[in-house]
C-alpha cells in the first residue's frame, strides 16, 4: 500500500487539488477515506497515465473522462480476451487448439 505522501513525492508536478478532483471524479480510486487514502500500484500507474495524458499529450482535462472511459473499455475487453484465452487453454482439446492456431496463422 502506498500513502498519499509517497504519491506526491513521486509526482512533483501533481497538485493536491488535482488529485482531490480526480478522486472525486472516480478517475483514481484509492482505498480508505479522505485523509487516510491508501493507493495500490495500479492507482499510482493511473495517476502517471493521467498526468502524461494531460501534460505530455496535452489532452484537455474536460476531454479526459472520454479518453479514460475508452481506455477502460479497451482494457476491460483485453482482460476478457485473456480470460477467454485462459479458459480455452484449460478446456479445449489439443486438436481444436491446433486448428484455431492454424486458423489465425499462428
Amino acid at each position: 500500500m502506498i500513502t498519499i505522501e509517497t504519491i506526491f513525492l513521486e509526482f512533483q508536478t501533481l497538485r493536491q487539488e488535482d488529485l482531490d478532483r480526480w478522486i472525486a471524479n472516480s478517475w483514481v480510486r484509492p482505498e480508505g477515506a479522505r485523509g487516510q487514502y491508501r493507493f495500490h500500484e495500479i492507482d499510482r500507474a493511473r495517476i502517471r497515465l493521467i498526468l502524461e495524458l494531460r501534460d505530455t499529450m496535452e489532452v484537455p482535462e474536460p476531454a479526459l473522462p472520454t479518453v479514460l472511459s475508452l481506455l477502460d473499455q479497451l482494457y476491460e475487453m483485453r482482460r476478457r480476451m485473456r480470460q477467454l484465452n485462459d479458459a480455452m487453454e484449460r478446456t479445449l482439446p489439443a486438436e481444436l487448439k491446433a486448428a484455431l492456431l492454424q486458423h489465425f496463422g499462428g
Partner: protein
Amino acid sequence: MAEDPYKLLGVPKDASPEDIRKAYRKLAKKHHPDLNPGNKAAEETFKRVSAANELLSDPEKRARYDAGEIDETGAEKPPPRTYRQYAETGAGERYAYTGGDPGFAGENFEDLFSTIFSGRQGARPTGPARGRDEHYTLTAEFLDAVTGATRRLTLPDGQTLDVKIPPGTTEGDVLRLRGRGAPGRNNGPAGDALIEIHITPHKFFTRDGQDIHLTLPITITEAVLGAKVTVPTPAGAVSMTIKPHSDTGTKLRLPGRGVPAHGATPAGALFVTLQIVLGPVDPALENFLRSWKPAETKDPRAGMGTGS
C-alpha cells in the same frame, strides 16, 4: 541502441526547447504504450523517444551530449511500470468500465460467450435440431403463374430469396424451398421456406384449370364477312380465322394455347369467345340499314315473353 536523439525526435541539431517539446508530444501521442496495448513496437519506440526527450529537454545534459561528453544512453534510467502493465491483470478490475452503456457494462461473461458461440443469447446446449419452417407469401402476376417465372422475395431481415414459380401454379399453392428456413441448432439441418402464392387477376384472361378463357372483340364486318384476326395468348399472339356469319358468343377453341404442359399435365386450351363491337357508326352504314330490307326477319327476343 546507438541512435541519434535528434533524429529520433526528428528535429535539427539547433532545435529550440519548444521545438523539441512539440516533437516529443507528437510522438508520445502516437506511441504511448497505454494507448497501444499489445503493440511491442510502439512501446519500444516510446521508450527511445522518451529517452531522447529526457536527454535533449535537459539543457545541461543536452550540452554535454552535444559536446560528446555523454552518449545517448548516458542519462537513461529504467522506465516506471506503466498503467497498462496493471490494467490487463486482475488489478484492472478496480477500473472496470462502469459508464452509461448497459449493453457493455451490464453484460456478464456468460452472455458474451453465448453470443460468440451460438449467435444468440441464452442458447440451450441440446443436441442437433432442425430449424423452424418460415412462412411467406408471394404475389405473382397472372402470366407468371401460367408460364412460370423466377421472382425475388425480400425477407423481413432484408435477405432475398429467389423463388422459382413453376408453370401452372394456381392460387394458394405453397412452394417449399428446402433449407431456406431458420438455421438449425448444433449442426442440425435448416428448416424450409414455405411460400404461399397469390395471383393477381389479368386484364382479359381468366383461368379454369389448364384452360384459359378470353373474350375477343370483333367488328361487325369481321363477324359478317369472316376474317383472319390476331389473338393474344399467354405464349404470344397467334392468328385465328373467324368464319363468315360468326355471332357474339361464338366460342372458338385453340388447343395447346392455354396453360403450357408441365410435369405429367398436358397443355390446356385457349377458349376465345367472340363479342361484336359496333364502334363508331358512319352515315353510310346508317343509310345502308335504312334501305336494307332483309328477306327474313327474326325477333332475337322472341323466346323471352313479357318477363312478368
